[in-house]
Structures are given as C-alpha cells and as structure tokens.
C-alpha cells in the first residue's frame, strides 16, 4: 500500500520544528513502527537524516513508543500502543500525520522523541511502599480479597507512556498519578504512607508543570492500557482526605 506521511521534524529541544512529507510503500501486516523502519532505511540509503522515534519492546508493554497519529496518541485504535498498531488499520493512499507527545513537561529531544523524566520524578516523590529488602513477612500472611487484588492490578497495568498527558488539552498527568495512587491506596501494604504519598505525588506533578484536570476524559479514552477515569476520582478523594487530615 502507498502511504503519505507528514512527520514532525525537530533537530533538538531548542530548535524550531516543522512537518516534512514522505512517501512510503507499506504492507498491511506491517506494524506502524516497521513502516518507519522501512522509511528510515530508505532515508539513510538516500543520504538523508532518519527520523528519531522512541521504541523498545514492540509488544505494547515497555511504554517507550510515543507517536501522535492523526491527532491521536497511539493512533486510531483503542487499547493499543503505537508498536501494536498495524498498517491494516489504514487504507491505500492515506495521508497520515505523525507528531511527538506535546506537553511542556515532556520537552522534545529530537523529532518524535520526548523526555518523560518527569514521570520518574513523580514516582520518586512517593509512588512506592517503603519496605527495605529483607523486611517482608510471608506472602500469604496478609490476605487480600480477589476483587481488591484485581482492581489494584488493573490500575497497576499503567505503562507510563504519557499518552494521557498528550491527549489532554491541559497536559494533565492525573490519570498516570491516579493509577499509582489507586493501586497503592487499595492494598494493605500501601496504608501506612497512604496520605503522605498522595500529597507528595500531587505536589511533584504540579512542580513538573503538568496542567490541571477538567474531566474531559480524553486521557482514559486514549490510554493504551484502558486505565479507567475512576482513578482520577479516586486520586481527588485520596488527596482531599489527606488534606483534611492536615497532611
């Protein structure tokens, strides 16, 4: 299939970017990133600069790939990352516009690669249970109802890709933070630090320059792991509870 691409090119964080157009021959069974591989090989052979983009596991779990495709993070399909998107989701002759995640808190490194270090710093501010290695009791000594474990797991499946931020008109990180806060606030192991955690993480989120949440739900709609919007409600609830307790 013949595909026309308009791709965001930007030399580095400080330079101006622009769209450039490319033509590429794809096959329907190719993944979207394999289509970029083919294009890059062409560009290199022709003596041009290949397009920088982030990717690693190519099975939808590492969270590294990050393309806004026709205005939607990870493209047109629900519940998949860019690497799991296949060309059969497009048609012969399509023009596809590809941009990086756009958010102040995610500065562009080059072309389609951005810096998501802000997410690591949010986790470092409190997204953990403080338990040193060696301190654990027998795993079955704390019983956790299956429903609770399943719901905590659902929140824990966040891959930290940043599609939620990219989808949000305010570049809010509430879905990301809400997912981690929900996971840990549900589990017995997360109780001792429950209130301090949510306050610290929200403070860090604000310090990183992420925007506020206005409940449009774009984040949950675009999340490749389909983290539900309810984690944001939960984040708000946890935050107010902590604040009312003077944290």
């Amino acid at each position: 299939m013949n595909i026309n691409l308009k791709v965001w090119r930007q030399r580095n964080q400080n330079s101006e970017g622009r769209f450039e157009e490319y033509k590429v021959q794809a096959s329907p069974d190719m993944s979207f990133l394999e289509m970029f591989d083919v294009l890059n090989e062409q560009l290199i052979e022709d003596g041009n600069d290949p397009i920088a983009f982030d990717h690693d596991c190519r099975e939808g779990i590492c969270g590294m790939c990050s393309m806004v495709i026709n205005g939607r993070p990870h493209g047109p399909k629900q519940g998949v990352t860019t690497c799991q998107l296949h060309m059969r989701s497009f048609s012969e002759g399509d023009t596809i516009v590809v941009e990086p995640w756009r958010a102040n808190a995610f500065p562009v490194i080059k072309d389609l690669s951005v810096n998501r270090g802000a997410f690591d710093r949010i986790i470092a501010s409190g997204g953990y249970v403080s338990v040193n290695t060696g301190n654990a009791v027998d795993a079955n000594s704390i019983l956790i109802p299956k429903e609770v474990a399943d719901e905590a797991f659902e929140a824990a499946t966040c891959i930290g890709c940043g599609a939620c931020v990219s989808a949000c008109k305010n570049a809010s990180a509430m879905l990301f933070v809400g997912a981690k806060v929900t996971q840990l606030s549900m589990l017995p192991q997360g109780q001792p630090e429950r209130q301090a955690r949510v306050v610290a993480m929200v403070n860090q989120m604000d310090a990183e320059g992420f925007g506020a949440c206005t409940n449009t739900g774009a984040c949950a709609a675009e999340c490749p792991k389909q983290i539900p919007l309810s984690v944001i409600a939960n984040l708000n609830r946890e935050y107010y509870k902590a604040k009312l307790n003077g944290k």
Partner: protein
Amino acid sequence: MKLDSKIPQGSVDTKWTQYKSSVSLVNPANKRSLHVIVVGTGLAGASAAATLAEMGYKVSAFCFQDSPRRAHSIAAQGGINAAKNYQNDGDSVYRLFYDTIKGGDYRAREANVHRLAEVSTNIIDQCVAQGVPFAREYGGTLSNRSFGGTQVQRTFYAAGQTGQQLLLGAYSALERQVGLGNVTMYSRHEMVEVVKIDGKARGIIARDLVSGKLERHFGHAVLLCTGGYGNVFYLSTNAMGSNVTAAWKAHRAGALFGNPCFTQIHPTCIPVSGHYQSKLTLMSESLRNDGRIWVPKKKDDNRQPNDIPEDERDYYLERRYPAFGNLVPRDIASRAAKERCDAGYGVGTTKMAVYLDFKYNMINKYGRTEASKRGIQNPSEDVLLELGKEIAKEKYGNLFDMYKQITAEDPYEVPMKIYPAVHYTMGGLWVDYELQTTVPGLYALGEANFSDHGANRLGASALMQGLADGYFIIPYTLGSYLSKEIHTKPISTDHEAFVEAEKKVSDRINQLMGIQGKRTVESYHRELGKIMWDKCGMARNEKGLKEAIDEIRALREDFYKNVRIPGSVDEFNPELDKAGRVADFLELGELMCWDALNRNESCGGHFREEYQTEEGEALRDDENFKNVFAWEYKENNQWELHKEELNYENIKIQQRSYK
C-alpha cells in the same frame, strides 16, 4: 588461567547459610564512602541498585532507555517460580533445585541453583510487601499455575504481565532511593567501556545518548545487569535495544564468557510474517497450561483447523511425552515443532507453524467447572465454550488480545499459530559463586551471567534469578570484596586509566562514523541474524558452524568498509548507538559458533545434529562435556578456551526424560 568458582564447603543445603554467616561485612559508616556502579535497570539491576542503596552504599545506576522502568524484564509474561508449596502438591526447595538442574540438562552448578531455590520464597514475600498485585484466589491467598518441566504448581503470576508488575515493584524501590538521594540515575546512557586500574574494575565510560558526550564514572565495584544477547539473531523476542555491548566490553577487558552458544529458543511465538519484520512476539508458556499443541496428521492439509476432526490431529507432544505432555521444557517443545514442520506437517501460509488450541480446555476444564458453579444442568457444548472463554479471558486476556492485534485472527475462535523463536541466552559472563567475573570488582547479575540455567532454562525462572541475584545474593557477596576496599579513596576520573579508556571509545566511534559507506546498520544486523539462525540456531552441525564463522568474518570485514551511519557524534543519533551494538554482535556471533563447534555433544538448547539418540533427543557426553566452557578474549578475535568441571554430588545425572 585457573578458574575458581569459590563454591563454599559443606553440604549443598548449608552452603549459602554458612556463607552468609561467615562472609565479611562492611560497617554502615564505611558503606557510605563506597560507590557502586550498576549498569542496567531490569529486574537484576533495579533490585540490586535499590537494595545496595538501602544498605547505605552510594549507587550510580545506568540504563539506555528513557526510564529505568522500561528495561525488557517488563515484557516477561507468564510468571515467577518459588518453592512455597502453597498448593500442598509436594513442592520443596529440593524439588525446585532438582527440576532446574534437570531442566538445564545437567550443565549448571549445583551450589548456585540450590541457593536460587532457597531464596525463591523470599522474593515472593518481598514483592508482595512492595504492593505487587499478584493473582489471588477468592479466599485472598496467592494463586499459582504450572510451567514447563515441572509437575507442581509453583508459578506466581499477575495475568500475563508478571514481569511488568515485578519490574515496577523493583523500579519503585529504585525510585524511592533516587528520591532519597542514595541513587543517582542516568537514563539514556550506555556503558561503552570498563575502566580497570591495577587489574580491578574501577569505573566505566558511559555515553550520554542525547548529547553524545562521553562521561567517566568511578566506582569501587561495577555490576553489569545488562540482560541477554538474543538479538545477535536479529529476530528475537528481545526488545529492539537489548544488546551485548556492556558484557562484550567487559569480555574484551578480561572477563571470561561462559557457554556463549547456549541459547533458548522459545516454542510458542507468533511466526514470522514478512521480510520487514523487526521482532518476534512471545506467547507465554503459561498458555501451555490450557493450550494443546497439534498439527494435522495428513501432510499439506489445507482445511481450516476447526474443520479437521479430532482423530485427524496429531497432538505430537502428548504422543511423544505422555508424562509431561504439552508442558515439556522449552528446548524439547521447540525441537518437536521444528521436526514436524521440517517433515512437512506445518500449517499456515509459510508451513512453518503449529497450532496451539484452547478449545478443548475451554470446554472441558473451565466450561464444566463454571457450569457446575452456576448450577447449569446438562449444558450444551456451545454453552460450555462460552463459559470457558470467560475464564480464558481472565487468565490470558492480554495475550489473546495481543495475538489478535498482530495476526488479525481471534484465538478465542481459531487455534493460535505458533513457531519457536530466540528468547533468552543461558550463556553470559562467567561468574563465580559470588557473581564476580574474572575481573576483580566486576560482577554480572541476571541474564547477563551464565550461571544458573545450564543448557536450558525452565519457564518462570528468569524473573526468579534476576531478583534473587539483585535482592538477596549480591547484597551479601559484594561485601566480601568491598570489605577489603574500605581504604580505597575515590579515584579521580582524571586518572590516566580513565583518559585512555575514553580515548579508546572515542577512537572507535570516530572510526565507525568515518566509514560513510553504502549499507545501513540494519542490513548488516539482518544478515548476521540469518547466518546465526540458519547455522547456529535450533540445530547445528560442524559443517554449518564452520561456514558460519567464515561468513561472519567476511560480513564483519565488509561492515568496517561499507557501513553508513548518518548524522554526527554530538547529537541524539540512534543509528550510531545501533552501529556500536551491531559491531559487538558481529564479534559475539563468531564466538558463539566456536563454542557450539567445540561442544561435541547435544545438551538442552544446544542441539548438534551429529549427536542425537535414535528417537531424536539430545545426546549428552558427560565424560567429556560435563563442564562450562569459559572463553578468554585474546587479540583480534582470537579466544582461548578454559573449562570449569561441574560436580554433581546431590543429583544423579541421567538421561533427561519427560516421557
């Protein structure tokens, strides 16, 4: 060179306890002035960095990804083994030890494996304490399932995302230490050289992949937790960035490489679909709990799988290995699939695939249980199937979705098509009992070392080993070395050893950039992969291996004449990063062939066609090869072979049988 494995005295079940109570300790005040470098932040690296920092050491951690959370451990699907015996089915530390040694076809060290089995239970406790949401039963206890090569249920899991949940646990522990200022994290950094002073590892040269700048980092010890090298085959289930570079630089700096040819080919992967393919996707071994593998009994049977009646299907694993059936170890399942396809019974357009079929168990196992739970009398097969699908969704939902996404076929309705693919490398840097390489102060953990899985790794054991090494082994064994280093003041990175190492790296990079030939890095990598897969893959023979060595040498020579790397050194340049990695693969590939050529026997995943039983099983030669091959790098891609004899004092060696 005399290889000293430093295995402690005493009976196998007391060695580790004895070791822990007698190893030298470093007092808390001294720990604060000792600096440890950890390269790689997968399960082994993240757990080691976090734990050492908790103990008080100063830690610098490095990863080439944009965040430590993205290391490829994240993609492990099925589970993690532990000898908890929560299922009351006769499991024990000894059984896990025995299964692992046997699974590895008697080519792993007894003492290491026993220690691994001992600490396996602590790992589960630690992960649960961190808030890792493992699958649970309705009563609130942890759930288990089976994996290949075992007859008990000892695998803990979190749907098909166990690696993700374990890594996020270790990552959160790591980030906690980053937040506390005990770990300095360097993301998008690649280790490109080991710095040695007076024979000891004293630091690394790392390249900042964003700015292209070379950096010097001092450490009293260096831990390589850099994973495996399956990407030497180009197509594998590894992440695109997974590479051998850190381990290879260590090898060239004097660390011996153990059993490089021991590669795990995983039986259940989505088959190759086109020449543009960049990687292969695994379908977890856990699927073999409920999936039955078969091919048509008739050659070139072009009917749809659901149209082929039961008595015209060959469930070849159940037929050949009745005791373990579909849950035979990976090497055996892979070879059996290859045998059927080579014989002309393969399915799909390429005929290089077999079916993995869930229908029987969806109906008979899950459907019937659900029906009786819900009080449905005399349910029809359709009702049972629908009920069974719900349970399958709960157990394997994300895997089924992924399969459908990639192939556009729905595994709830038609059997999956699968074929073996490169997945894991049992070989790696040779380490002693303390996980130290032959370079003092340089350690290798997790998949990067060669130690615990022999010639074949059992499923759900990689996560176990990575976390065992990082959480529970290195924190003790590192003390043995660092307790003697408390008087070593931090060495300035202006030291001539750092200057020389950096120059070596920058010369190497400039050489690569200066070639400006015609061929892309990718094209070399693809060609190398094809040589490796065809001649050093699932089946190997003397003639093919000798050809492969010549072909790799020629390819390497061409690479240094004709490769084209765009862009410049001092910018974000993923093509340059890739070129460095492929250059190292081009050397490693040759060593793997030498290793396979010299090991004149078949064992585990290493199958030399000349050495097989009448039934086509691997034929070991314990008299000559009950040992580890440890290769020492000499100048210009020449190697010297050293051997470490393996002693089996607790397990009687026998022909491995799963029949």
